[in-house]
């Protein structure tokens, strides 16, 4: 059993929520902020992009989600080489003054699977540069081990392709990664609905990162609330320890004393 509070600890920082939500694909930043409140998440992922010079008055994410109250986790979405990723996160560190980052080095836009060779290389460079690296990776226990050995702060295997909402496709691998890893394991990508998040947590994951599942729900605020409960339910079920699976029925009412 974890500490009294059962908080999520990443690179020495403590978070009361095990849910991390994205800030993409929402209709408005206001809706995004409401979903964040409903989800109870402490961390949001954010992208790093050029400022709009033709319209400097356009709404900014920081005007809706306060970086002093919610941890911004800058990502490297859209980066296809280690160099791109490092350049992006160095700028993010300067803009935000924060060295906890999400590394994702993607490959083919069709499936958005991580390029693990580049991911390993980039992780090494970022760690040497003083970053705490939470790394998006394939659900391969061998690569997950290599990333942990490099010193990554959290291992974040995909449950299914980014934005697919297909749920946890390989429970065996996620479970293997959870068992072998001593830093937090956070399922990143693939969750479609609350039951998918529950499964991730029941497998022993330390948290779940999701974006589309909330942003593209018909009612994102209600789905954010559902995910908050899902993370808690799954976590508690994991800590409680499920009953053994049996092949046959086992009556819950005693058979003795029947009239």
């Amino acid at each position, binding site marked *: 059993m974890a500490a009294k509070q059962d908080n999520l600890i990443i690179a020495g920082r403590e978070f009361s929520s095990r849910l991390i939500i*994205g*800030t*993409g*694909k*929402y209709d408005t*930043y206001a809706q*995004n902020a409401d979903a964040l409140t409903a989800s109870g998440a402490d961390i949001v*992922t*954010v*992208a*790093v*992009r*050029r*400022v709009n*010079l033709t319209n*400097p*008055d356009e709404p*900014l*994410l*920081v005007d809706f989600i306060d*970086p002093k109250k919610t941890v*911004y986790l*800058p*990502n490297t*979405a859209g980066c296809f080489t280690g160099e791109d990723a490092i*350049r992006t996160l*160095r*700028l*993010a560190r*300067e*803009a*935000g003054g924060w060295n906890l980052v999400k590394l994702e080095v993607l490959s083919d836009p069709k499936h958005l699977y991580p390029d693990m060779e580049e991911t390993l290389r980039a992780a090494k460079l970022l760690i040497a540069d003083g970053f705490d690296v939470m790394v998006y990776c394939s659900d391969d226990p061998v690569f997950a081990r290599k990333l942990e050995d490099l010193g990554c702060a959290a291992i974040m295997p995909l449950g299914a392709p*980014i*934005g697919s909402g297909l749920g946890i496709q390989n429970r065996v691998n996620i479970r293997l990664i959870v068992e072998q890893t001593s830093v937090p394991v956070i399922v990143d*990508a693939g969750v479609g609905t609350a039951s998918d998040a529950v499964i991730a947590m029941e497998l022993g994951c330390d948290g779940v990162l999701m*974006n*589309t599942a909330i942003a593209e729900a018909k009612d994102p605020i209600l789905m954010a609330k559902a995910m908050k409960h899902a993370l808690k339910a799954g976590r508690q079920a994991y800590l409680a320890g499920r009953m053994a699976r049996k092949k046959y029925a086992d009556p819950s009412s005693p058979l003795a004393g029947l009239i």
Partner: protein
Amino acid sequence: MQLTINGEIYTDLNAGINVLGLLSHLNLPKAKIAVERNRVIVPKSGYGTVVLKDGDVLEIITFIGGG
């Protein structure tokens, strides 16, 4: 002088302007952004002292929504 900022060419800036002057010219809030000049990050503490030169290539970034 000519500057390239976020991929666009700007010719309306006078020589001798520093990063702080550029940001104020562009109407950008310096707390919410980061600046890269010729592939090197300009720390916020250097905005007042780093003077831009003809031909400089600048990237100015901020945080936007993402997953």
